[in-house]
């Protein structure tokens, strides 16, 4: 964010009112057309001249992309154009669902600020692909998938791996994400989110974690994901495996942290060194996991 401009480069703005119409436009213009959701990221990238588009396709006029629905046993379906504040409001009104998706709720309330959250969408936050976003971590621990449709078909894509870099995803230019599914967490799971910011409004380390039956090795499930510290959202699968061992939870936390610190590729920038990030990943993950296990989070 260092470009001098007040104005945006020229583009044609289209706001289709049906999914059909939107897909048509994308099909026709391919790479020349870019999808705009809340537009927070799109406008910033345009303003910075980091993105070019002949057509900006605003999908906010498509009614079926706005939804929030919790289906017991399946999970939480959040429409593509659902804003972060709409999600927070929904969860505030359904405390049981909120507790199931506590990490998502906490990440949402720490995402940007109240005004931005009126526009920013969960799907957009994930697809924007910057390293320090808050929505991807919870998406990874809830094994989230996005539903992508195009003229030629539809598919469900796991969020893990969907992002390849800033504004770069596995999606085809003719595909629109209609919704994201946060899968039903394992029975008895508790989850939480830590955003550790230092001199920026984004976290230098963000941890999302989920713990179920910590003291019952047979049933124990632990999921851990990071953003902010790693170039891409990172699900610490190797570390999660550690918890399959029969040892006591606290001991495994130590081992899992070591696995993370030994294996992960960590960012280094003027806001925090790689060393410090790695160290913090250990402290914050330990704190979060232990507190979740004890029911103190």
């Amino acid at each position, binding site marked *: *964010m*260092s*470009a*001098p*401009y*007040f*104005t945006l480069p020229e583009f044609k703005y289209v706001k289709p009112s049906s999914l059909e119409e939107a897909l048509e436009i994308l099909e026709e213009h391919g790479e020349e057309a870019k999808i705009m959701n809340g537009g927070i990221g799109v406008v910033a990238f345009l303003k910075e001249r980091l993105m070019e588009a002949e057509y900006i396709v605003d999908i906010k006029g498509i009614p079926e992309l706005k939804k929030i629905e919790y289906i017991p046993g399946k999970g939480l379906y959040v429409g593509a154009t659902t804003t972060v504040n709409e999600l927070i409001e929904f969860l505030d009104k359904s405390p049981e669902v909120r507790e199931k998706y506590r990490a998502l709720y906490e990440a949402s309330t720490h995402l940007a600020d109240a005004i931005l959250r009126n526009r920013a969408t969960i799907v957009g936050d994930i697809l924007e692909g910057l390293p320090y976003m808050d929505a991807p971590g919870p998406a990874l621990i809830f094994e989230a998938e996005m539903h992508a449709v195009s003229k030629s078909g539809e598919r469900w894509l796991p969020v893990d791996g969907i992002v390849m870099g800033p504004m770069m995803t596995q999606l085809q230019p003719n595909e629109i994400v209609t919704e994201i599914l946060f899968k039903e967490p394992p029975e008895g799971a508790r989850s939480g989110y830590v955003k*550790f*910011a*230092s*001199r*920026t*409004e*984004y976290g230098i380390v963000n941890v999302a974690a989920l713990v179920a039956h*910590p*003291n019952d090795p047979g049933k124990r499930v632990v999921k851990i994901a990071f953003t902010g510290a790693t170039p891409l959202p990172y699900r610490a699968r190797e570390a999660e495996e550690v918890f399959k061992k029969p040892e*006591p*939870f*606290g*001991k495994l*936390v*130590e081992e899992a942290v070591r696995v993370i610190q030994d294996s992960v590729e960590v960012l280094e920038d*003027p*806001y*925090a*060194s790689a060393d*410090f990030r790695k*160290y*913090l990943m250990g*402290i*914050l993950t*330990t704190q979060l996991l*232990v507190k979740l*296990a*004890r029911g103190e989070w």
Partner: protein
Amino acid sequence: MSKQAFKVLGKPVPPPDSYEKVTGTAPYTFDMELPGMLYAKLVTSTEPHARIKSIDYSKALQVPGVRIVATGKDFPVRIGIYVGDRDMLAIEKALWVGHPVAAVVAESIKAAEKAIDLVEVEYDPLPAVFDVEEALKPDAPLLHPDIANYKISPAFKPVPGTNIANQFRMIKGEGEAGFDKADLVIEKTFKMPFLHHAYMETWNTIAHYKVTGDIEIWTSSQSPYAPRYLMAMSLGVPVGKIKMRIPYVGGGFGGKAGVLIEPLVAMLSKKAGYKPVKLVMSRAEQMRSMPVIAGYKAYAKIGFSKDGKIVAYKVRFLFDTGAFADYTVNVARTAGYACTGVYDMPNVYCESLAIYTNKVPTTAIRGFGYPENHWVLERLMDMAARELRMDPVKIRSINLLRPGDPTSTTGYGSPLRADAGDIQGVLKTSAELIEWDKEPEQPKEPWKIRAKGIAMSLKGPSQPPNAVDAAIVKFNEDASVDILVATGNYGQGTVNALRMIVAEAFDLPLDKVHITWMNSTEWMPYTWQTVGSRSTFTVGQALLRAVEDAKRQIFDIASTVLKVPADQLELADGKVYVKGEPWMSIPLTEIVNGYTFPNGQVLGGPIIGRGIHSPGILSYLDPDTGQALPINPETGHSEPGHATVFYTFGSTAVEVELDLLTGDIKVLKATQVYDIGRLINPLTAKGQAIGGLIMGMSRALYEELIFDDSGGVANPNFSFYYVARAKDIPDDIRIKFLETPQADGPFGARGFSENVMIAVIPAIANAIERATGVSITELPMTHERVWRAIKEQRPDLIEKALKAFQEWKNASQG
């Protein structure tokens, strides 16, 4: 006068501009549009240091709507307030990444923004220097080889042939030799980063150079006269031809003092065919291309006797001014002459250099050298307290200056006046408010520590000795009063305080005293500048004299009408009374435009009072010794001179919580104590104290401009240049004002609105030092910096904390 005697002073009065601001109806320069207006946009350098070989703007001119493109060749003049080193557009050389090298003027901002991308600049790179110590080396690349030919104000001494924009030295007593007597000597190096002022409104200017040669300007400056004069001087335009108008301004913090971009926009207006031109800065442009706040490195050494008295102090400030030092030379000089802070020291050697580097230029800042020098000195006091096993309050108390004692002098040799304020009372009150003697309650996590820290501050306006001010009061037909002062109103509440002073002095209700939002050289009388917390004090005095002047005229008329001598009259409740005979009176409404007798004859005319403030007691400091020059005895004052018209004493104490595992510092409680002479408006005074606390905290913990490898600002936005937010504000803020009146202050008042941030910064680090023995000397105190400092200086603490953390973790294993 006792407090109860006041009708207006001491009451919480919201500034009238608040209503317009919160309703979004206050007009700023940014909002203003004129018929036929054109829009300018800057092309900036991509090189840190380079000769400009050529600028090809033929393609830019082809963009529809583009009128002209200007380069440094069009305006080869330099501007500035103290060291006139600034160019309007790079002259021959680009000096930093972000240096404006050309300007496009077009019919729309859109066309202008398109055109800047089409201006082709060919650079011939030169070696660049980004570090002050590198810049001091004999073979360092020179940024300003022609500095000897620049316009330099008499208080400043650049060193031609070097990158030194100003060199200030102060020696008191035996200087460095004083260390021979010290039982304890502490030596430390301190650092402060470059900062951004973070005012909400960026620099915005509209200029209309008219065919008549008159130049009308609307600008987001702090006050109108300084930019007008500086602009006239540099452009060679008669000063009276320039009408400098200042609408609402969205904050300043020193960053809109002196001259901004007015000369450039005026010249673009002329070149574009005498059309009004507007130039507004985006945040990124503001932070990369316009002046920010200088960083520094300081080498300090302090000597104490066993009983805790300071015997000698030495400090060398190396201020990094970036590519232009214009205003910063005075920030650096002030840090030098006020280096001794609130303490009496027999032997002092302070040196302060302002040094050019190939980075964004710098300018004035709230606090103006005082946060900088207090960060060093107030930290050293706590380090000494620790070494000497003394209480930080006690070691301060025994070293404080003694107002009124001629043997206790500031570093530049002047004793403080007896009514300068209750310096011991400030320290004592601050300590009491934070409950200094009570141990903080410790959090349940054993890796977190709570601790208290304290620091003192003093601050005076850093104005030239000949900075003068005028004020006018005039009456409307209904006997209400208009105040005419050129004092800037950019959020501090000063003009509202001046209104309260006038209401009190005239005994008029507040709604009978009017102020206005638009400031201009056309109708407001001269004031040097609105900076340095000076205006309540200086312009307040001018206004009180204006009120006296108006009263004399009123009594003159009334004395004829009521047939009593003028000295028998008094003014109250909008009437002139005969003293002791209140039934003998005339309403002011019958006097303010002259008194009309029943026969229609008029006596006198419109009442207009004028008053001035002239400091008189200030003098230059000897450039070689830093000692104040003696005052001319024929003026009725005695030697030596002073550097400031007042000093205000302050103290901040904090209780902080430190997380040893993450380096996280939270300010839980804070005190703000200032002896401000007279509390004029408790509402805005409290606002300043809270705002200053947050700004100080923000500088202590978060703010830092980060530079990339080519010296360009890498975080020119508020996502990555983090400024304290609502969530960071401590819940528990304890504010107290002492009121030891200063005889010449208006109703005894002194200024204080910069002081409020100074002690905050060291107080936080002092708390950490007390709790852990870890000395933090570099700002901001980021998580990583604090964590590393603890790891280096007290690895045992981190080990202990980690052990406790392990124990806490393992406690879960059943």
